[in-house]
């Protein structure tokens, strides 16, 4: 069943409609919400939503409960290749929980939260932006980790990043839902404006494993991988200091030593290397720059340092 959960009239002969599809079978009222498309340039979740819904349709008898799929929280953004909501300054994921009495976007955000709240688990799928590639990972703040970590480990991701809480992140959908008692996992994977089928398939296996663990799925599932958890480890940030074109010489997921040459920032006009980029620490490259043009400060890579004893080696 497809349902419009929030709507607002646009100026000329059109409504902005946020839709979900409810897939339901059996007696259980357990509910998993799969949410994506908050940022209009993040498209990995589009394919994931399609394959999850398609598999459930094909094997509906194996489902006992409710799966709600929200493929586009920011439909105008997706349709116009715009990261934010067109004609609105703020990032949509900085407006939650919204307000029924607020502006159009605040009202829509409030309606989205009301609809998702009460799910047993919500999976909020993001895919970096056009600049960075990310390995499939789940991010959570330190205060939410005790509740979320067991569920995150079911999701077949490579990495779980537990980060410090920041005040500005209190305006995200995930924070709002977690505060209201709806366990919400934030997935980051792939790169903006692209679909990485391999990652979507990986997370697909994770979602069905989660459904099985929740007692909502009796069909086949694939074994899931043990993720690396950032607890007790540091993350090293590699930023460009020069401006130019970044050409990496490592691959995403590589294990590197501190000082390893990971790429160059080059100047095509003078044909010179303007910055030789080295790893700032030992560890695994879990973020790597995808978009080559850089300014001083552009993020080039993130490296997860090994646990004490250097387990990854």
């Amino acid at each position: 069943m497809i349902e419009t959960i929030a709507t607002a009239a646009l100026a000329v002969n059109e409504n902005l409609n946020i839709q979900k599809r409810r897939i339901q079978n059996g007696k259980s009222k357990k509910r998993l919400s799969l949410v994506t498309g908050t940022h209009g340039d993040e498209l990995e979740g589009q394919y994931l939503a399609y394959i999850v819904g398609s598999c459930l349709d094909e094997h509906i008898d194996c489902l006992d409960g409710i799966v709600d799929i929200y493929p586009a929280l920011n439909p105008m953004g997706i349709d116009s290749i715009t990261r934010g909501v067109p004609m609105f300054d703020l990032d949509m994921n900085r407006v939650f929980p919204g307000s029924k009495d607020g502006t159009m976007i605040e009202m829509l955000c409030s309606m989205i939260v009301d609809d998702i709240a009460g799910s047993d688990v919500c999976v909020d799928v993001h895919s970096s932006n056009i600049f960075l590639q990310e390995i499939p990972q789940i991010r959570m703040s330190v205060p939410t980790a005790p509740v979320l970590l067991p569920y995150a480990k079911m999701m077949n991701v490579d990495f779980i990043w537990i980060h410090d809480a920041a005040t500005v992140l209190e305006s995200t959908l995930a924070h709002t839902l977690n505060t209201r008692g709806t366990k919400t996992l934030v997935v980051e994977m792939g790169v903006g404006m692209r679909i990485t089928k391999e990652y979507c398939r990986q997370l697909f296996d994770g979602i069905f494993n989660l459904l099985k663990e929740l007692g909502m799925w009796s069909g086949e599932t694939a074994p899931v991988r043990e993720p690396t958890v950032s607890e007790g480890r540091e993350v090293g940030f590699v930023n460009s200091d020069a401006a130019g074109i970044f050409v990496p010489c490592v691959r995403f997921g590589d294990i590197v030593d501190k000082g390893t040459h990971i790429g160059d920032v080059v100047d095509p006009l003078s044909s010179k290397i303007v910055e030789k980029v080295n790893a700032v620490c030992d560890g695994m490259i879990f973020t790597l720059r995808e978009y080559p043009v850089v300014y001083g400060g552009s993020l080039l890579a993130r490296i997860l340092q090994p646990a004490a004893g250097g387990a990854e080696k």
Partner: protein
Amino acid sequence: MKKKILYSLRSPYREQLDVIGFRFGHGRKSAAIVGAMRGNEVQQMCVCSRMIQELKKLEAKGLIAEDHEIMVIPCANYYSMNIGKRFWAMDNTDINRMFPGYWQGETTQRIADGVFSKIQGYEYGIQLASFYQQGNFLPHVKMMDTGFASPELMKDFGLQFGIIRKPRPYDTTTLNYNWQVWETKAFSVYANATDVIDENAADEAVYAILRFLDKQGIITANTPPGYITKLIDESKTKQIRSEAAGIFKSCIEIGKRVERGDILGTISDPFEGEIISEIRSTVSGTVYFEYFAPLINSNTVCFKIIK
């Protein structure tokens, strides 16, 4: 006046971005004034350029008080201004959502840090701010209610209204909020327009800033008399939102007093031209914001009224 590059950033192919500060007077850091941080904040840059004109004259006449220094930064983001973008030219991030900045961080965090490190430690901070929505404001001054500075200080600008805003999570990365955290008494002055120049509002903003600096004993300036500022909690102002979408027409000027039930504007069907919604005031008070665009979506704030 001393002109100094406060922060520089290289780009792959454009000329280096230089954030330039103009210093007047000598001694303790008394006031910093920041203009455009977004590429469409032309009015904000213009107000700063007029402030520089005024301060040059005052300095030449010896009317900047001993042991007081004033810094003016007209524009921190002309890279975006020169290519017609509101946010950062490369990644569309907002410098005013990056404070206090981080010198080893991403590009706009570095710019924010580069600017913030030079405007920290001033006793007063004045930002020429813009609103995200198209519209006209009565010139007013606003401050974040962090508990650090007294809202009473806003009265020294002599603008009609001083508005106190309770910070929301997304405000915590703005310049105004961080200035206060670092113990600068910070104010945002709204000079009506953003991407066009409103001469009258620019004059009013310049007089207000001069009046404020004069009241603090930083300069001696003759300005037209100001208003007796009314201080208002932002949550107590009334926002009137559109109940329909279509072609918007305002029937009222900002600054006018309205009674409850008065028509403020209309919304017409964009194809058939019939009026489909009358926007009426739900309170009596003074209109201090009106939406300014021909097309309007539903649930858009189209008027703000001070009760």
